[in-house]
C-alpha cells in the first residue's frame, strides 16, 4: 500500500480523437476486446469465482440448499467474541500506530526530501509494514520470548521478570505489540504523501499575518490534514483486521480473533451443520473491511482537494 494516490488520467478524459474512418466498427470493437480476454479470464477464475464461493457458501446449507443458518450462527458467543476482539485489537493498534506513525512522518517531512535519512527510513517502513507477519513474530520471539534478548537481560541483570503474571507474548497483548510494530511504519507510508502536500507558503502566509504555531496547526494544518489522518487510520484498521500471519505464528492456543476462527473452521473437524460457517465468517470480515475501505475512499477524495 505504498502508492495510494489516484492520479488523474489525461488520456481517458481527453475527447476521443478518431482520425481514421470506421471500417466495420462492431468487428473492430470485437477484435479490440480480444486483447483483454486473458486478463478477464484470469480474474474470473482466480478472483471472481473465489469471491462468489464465499458469498454463495455463506447462504448454503450442508445439503446444498439455501439457508440463513450460517449467518445466524455468526451470533454464537464465541464468534461474536472473536469479532469483538478483532475489532478492538485493530482499532487500538490503528490509533497507536496512527499517532506514533504520524509523528514519525512529520519528523521525516522536516528532513531534506530525497536525503539519505528519508530514503532509508522509507524503505525500512516498507519492509516492516508489508513484509509478512511471520518474520516479525519471530523477531519478537527473539526479543521477548522466554529466552529472548530483553527477557534474559531484564531477568539476569535487573531481576525483573516480565512474565511474572503469565506469558503474555503469545496472547492478545503480544499480538497488540507486534501489530503496533507494523502499523507505525504503514502509517508513515500512507501519511507521508499528505504531509508532503502541505505547502510551506501556507505557513509563511500564517506567519506574515501574525499567527502563532498553535494557531497555524489549529486553524490551517490541522483541518487540512484531518481527513488524511482519519483515512490513514481507517486503512490501518483494515490492515490489522485482515492480518493473519502474525497471529497464526504467535498464538498457539485457541482462536481469539476472527482470522484464527476462520482457520479453525477450515482445518479442524467439520461440525455437522456448520460446513459453511467459515464462509459466513469470511463474508463478515469482507463486509467490515469493505465498509472501512469505502469510508477511506471518501476521505481520500476529500484529502485530494487540497493535498493531492
Amino acid at each position, binding site marked *: 500500500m505504498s502508492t495510494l494516490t489516484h*492520479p488523474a*488520467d*489525461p*488520456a*481517458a478524459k*481527453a475527447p476521443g480523437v478518431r482520425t481514421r474512418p470506421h471500417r466495420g466498427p462492431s468487428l473492430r470493437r470485437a477484435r*479490440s476486446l480480444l*486483447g*483483454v480476454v*486473458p*486478463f478477464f479470464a*484470469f*480474474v474470473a*477464475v*482466480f*478472483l471472481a469465482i*473465489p*469471491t462468489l*464461493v*464465499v458469498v454463495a457458501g455463506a447462504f448454503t446449507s450442508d445439503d446444498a440448499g439455501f439457508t440463513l443458518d450460517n449467518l445466524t450462527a455468526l451470533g454464537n458467543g464465541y464468534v461474536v467474541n472473536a469479532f469483538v476482539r478483532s475489532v478492538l485489537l485493530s482499532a487500538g493498534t490503528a490509533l497507536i500506530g496512527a499517532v506514533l506513525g504520524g*509523528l*514519525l512522518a512529520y519528523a*521525516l517531512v*522536516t*528532513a531534506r526530501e*530525497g536525503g539519505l535519512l528519508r*530514503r532509508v*527510513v522509507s*524503505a525500512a517502513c516498507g*519492509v516492516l509494514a508489508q*513484509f*509478512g507477519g*511471520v*518474520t516479525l513474530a*519471530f*523477531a*519478537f*520471539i*527473539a*526479543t521477548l520470548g522466554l529466552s*529472548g*534478548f*530483553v527477557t534474559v537481560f531484564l531477568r539476569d541483570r535487573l531481576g525483573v521478570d516480565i512474565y511474572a503474571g503469565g506469558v503474555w507474548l503469545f496472547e492478545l497483548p503480544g499480538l497488540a505489540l507486534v501489530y503496533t*510494530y507494523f502499523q*507505525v*511504519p504503514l502509517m508513515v507510508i500512507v501519511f507521508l504523501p499528505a504531509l508532503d502536500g502541505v505547502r510551506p507558503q501556507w505557513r509563511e502566509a500564517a*506567519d506574515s499575518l501574525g499567527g502563532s*504555531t498553535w494557531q497555524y496547526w489549529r486553524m490551517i494544518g490541522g483541518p487540512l490534514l484531518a481527513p488524511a489522518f482519519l483515512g490513514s487510520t481507517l486503512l490501518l484498521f483494515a490492515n490489522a483486521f*485482515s492480518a*493473519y500471519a502474525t497471529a*497464526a505464528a504467535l498464538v498457539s492456543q485457541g482462536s481469539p480473533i476472527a*482470522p484464527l476462527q476462520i*482457520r479453525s473452521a*477450515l*482445518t479442524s473437524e467439520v461440525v455437522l451443520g456448520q460446513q459453511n460457517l467459515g*464462509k459466513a465468517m469470511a463474508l463478515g*470480515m*469482507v463486509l467490515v473491511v*469493505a465498509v472501512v*475501505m469505502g469510508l477511506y475512499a471518501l476521505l481520500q477524495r476529500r484529502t485530494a482537494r487540497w493535498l493531492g
Partner: protein
Amino acid sequence: MVGVIRRRARRQRLLRWVILTGLGVFFLLPLLAMVEFTTRGAGGTLSLETWRLLVDWPRLSETYPDLSVGIAASFGLVVLTALLMLVLLVPTVIWVRLRLPRLHRVVEFLCLLPLTIPAIVLVVGLAPVYAWVTYFLGGSPLTLTFAYTVLVLPYAYRALDAGLSAIDVRTLSEAARSLGAGWVTVMWRVVLPNIRSAVLSAAFLTVALVLGEFTIASLLSRVNLQVAINLLGKSSATMSVAVSLAALLLAFVLLLLLSLVGRGRHRTATKELS
C-alpha cells in the same frame, strides 16, 4: 522573519531527533535482539554457527530439508509471479488505455478489489479452485503463482497506472502507427520503454510481497519460505530467527533499490518539464 524561520528550523531539528531516537529504539531493538539471539553460543559465548549453516546450501538442505524446499519454492514463485503479472497486466493496461478507454474503470475496480478481500478470506474461496488446479497441474508450491498474482494486482496496477499517466500514450502510439508500426511494435518498442521504471517498481513490489506471503501457502498446505520458517520455529527457533532476519534484510535492500528507481523516474520527469 528570518529569525523566526531559523528558530523554527532548529526546533524542528530537535523534535525530529527526539522522535527518531525514541521510535528508533523501539524498531531497532527487535532487530538487534535477532542478531544476538542467532549468535548466542553455549555458556554466553559468541557463535556464528547458525549463520555459517545458513550460507552453506548443501549442508542446510541436509539439516533442514523443509527450509531449503521453502526457500527454493519462494524464489521460483517470485520469478513466476513477476512474469505472470507482467504478461497479464502490462499489455492489458496499455491496450485498455489505447483502444478501450471505457473499460478503464472496470479494470481499475477489478485490480483494486483484492485490497478489500483479506487473504484469509480469499483462501476460503480459493480452496475449491485449487482443488482443480491440483487436479490439472499437481500439488507443487509453484502453483501458488496464480493466487499470488491476484494478491499483487492492486500494487502492480497502481505502479503501472501511475507510469502510464505520466506519459502521453495516445500521441506516442498515434505517431508510431502513422509511421506504419503494428500494435505489437507500439507496445513493445514505444510504450514499454517509456514506462520502464513503472514496470520495474511493479516487479520489485511483487518480489517483496511474494517473499513475505504466508496465509495462502499455509492454508493451501504448500511450503514456501514463510511456511518453512514457521514450521522450523517449533524445532529450531534459532535457525528460523536467522532466516527471518535474512529475509527482512533482503526485502529492505530490494525496497531501497526500488526507491532509487523511483528517484530516477522523478529526475527524468523534471528534466522533461524544464
